């Protein structure tokens, strides 16, 4: 390897470390690096400087809802692994559904007019408030299901009891109405053998109604069946 060759590769090393080589050039350099200690050492010398570049940016505080949304998605994916996978209650397709839905939180939730609920005959606000403003709201639907909404901070958990076993290929999906639009709650529900199910709602701010419908596996973009639970939420 001549000195002029190394000068040429040397020019590329900094661009490579910064991720600024074209893919073809990067591939060529990587092939060269496999057999050249000198260039590898030089690249190794550059890399810490590049790794520290992100530390130079102005610090921004992320919104709390980002953490809440992430943990909702993560816990929804973790639960089937730890609790249900062995018993086969969460088919793989549904677990994928959890993941995909979690991603939609920040990218804009599917929003539909809540007028759909009225057209479909949903009954809203049948329950009373069990915990006062910002506390728990208890609702019993006419289908014999007990729903309990526990609000904690900005978020909340919807607990369902006495839920009938679902037909094959069906899951429960929760929805919230916020400022006149309906949003899907990312984590889908499958009741356990005792008829209990729960889901976490990352952001309850501005939510005035929560409802639950039966949907096909993987969930739906908007409600496709009459609500089996509706509850009004006091803000």
């Amino acid at each position, binding site marked *: 390897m001549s000195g002029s060759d190394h000068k040429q590769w040397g020019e590329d090393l900094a661009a490579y470390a910064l991720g600024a*080589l074209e893919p073809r050039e990067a591939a060529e350099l990587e092939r060269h690096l496999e057999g050249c200690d000198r260039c590898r050492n030089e690249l190794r010398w550059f890399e810490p400087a590049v790794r520290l570049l992100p530390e130079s940016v102005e610090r921004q*505080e*992320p919104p709390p809802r980002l953490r809440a949304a992430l*943990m909702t998605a993560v816990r929804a994916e973790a639960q089937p692994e730890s609790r249900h996978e062995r018993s086969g209650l969460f088919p793989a397709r549904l677990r994928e559904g959890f993941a995909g839905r979690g991603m939609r939180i920040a990218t804009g939730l599917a929003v539909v007019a809540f007028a759909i609920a009225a057209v479909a005959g949903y009954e809203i606000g049948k329950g009373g408030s069990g915990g006062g403003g910002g506390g728990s709201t208890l609702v019993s639907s006419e289908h014999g299901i007990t729903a309990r909404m526990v609000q904690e901070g900005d978020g909340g958990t919807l607990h369902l009891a006495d839920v009938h076993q679902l037909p094959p290929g069906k899951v429960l999906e929760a929805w919230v109405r916020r400022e006149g639009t309906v949003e899907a709650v990312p984590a889908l529900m499958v009741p356990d053998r005792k008829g209990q199910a729960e889901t976490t709602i990352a952001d309850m701010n501005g939510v005035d109604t929560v409802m639950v419908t039966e949907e096909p596996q993987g969930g739906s973009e908007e409600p496709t069946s009459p609500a089996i639970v509706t509850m009004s939420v006091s803000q």
Partner: protein
Amino acid sequence: MAVRREKAERLADEELMPLVGRKDPEAFEVLYDRHGGAAFSLAYRIVGDRTAAEEVTQEAFISVWRSGARFDATRGSVRSWLLSVARNRAIDFLRSRAGKAPKLDFDDESALEQRPAAERTEEEALRRETATEVRGAIGNLPGEQAKVIELAYFGGFSHSEIAQILSLPMGTVKGRMRLGLEKIRGELAEGLA
């Protein structure tokens, strides 16, 4: 079996990663609490919009959650890896919105000084010191060197794109990148040894 939050908090990042690979939410939560702010800040620096930065950060961490086992400790720290994932997502986001120009300044001298409460630990203090040093090193670069590094790292542009943007020969762009990185590396050499 998931570890308790208190135990996870006592573990080093490198010890948390295998747990994340086994889908432990507590370990993941601790990782996010340690590095989520830096990832969000980097994403914001690149995309220039809080909502977009939120989306990018969420995608990055979900990707980490799903691919935790791919972390290779021989190639750098967990934090570096997480930030590179966030950077890649942010650059992808920028590219998907063709025509969106990156923010192009290194001039936020007082920004770190204004940062509120949460950074009182020794580690945070060290990072803050490092950030100040890096910003100082970048600030000391000649403008033309800082600009090509900025466009490459925070803008996601290739050297040929930068040459086009700045109407310079490609060799000049690569040369400035090299000189700039050498100076930053030189100034930080003691701290990085």
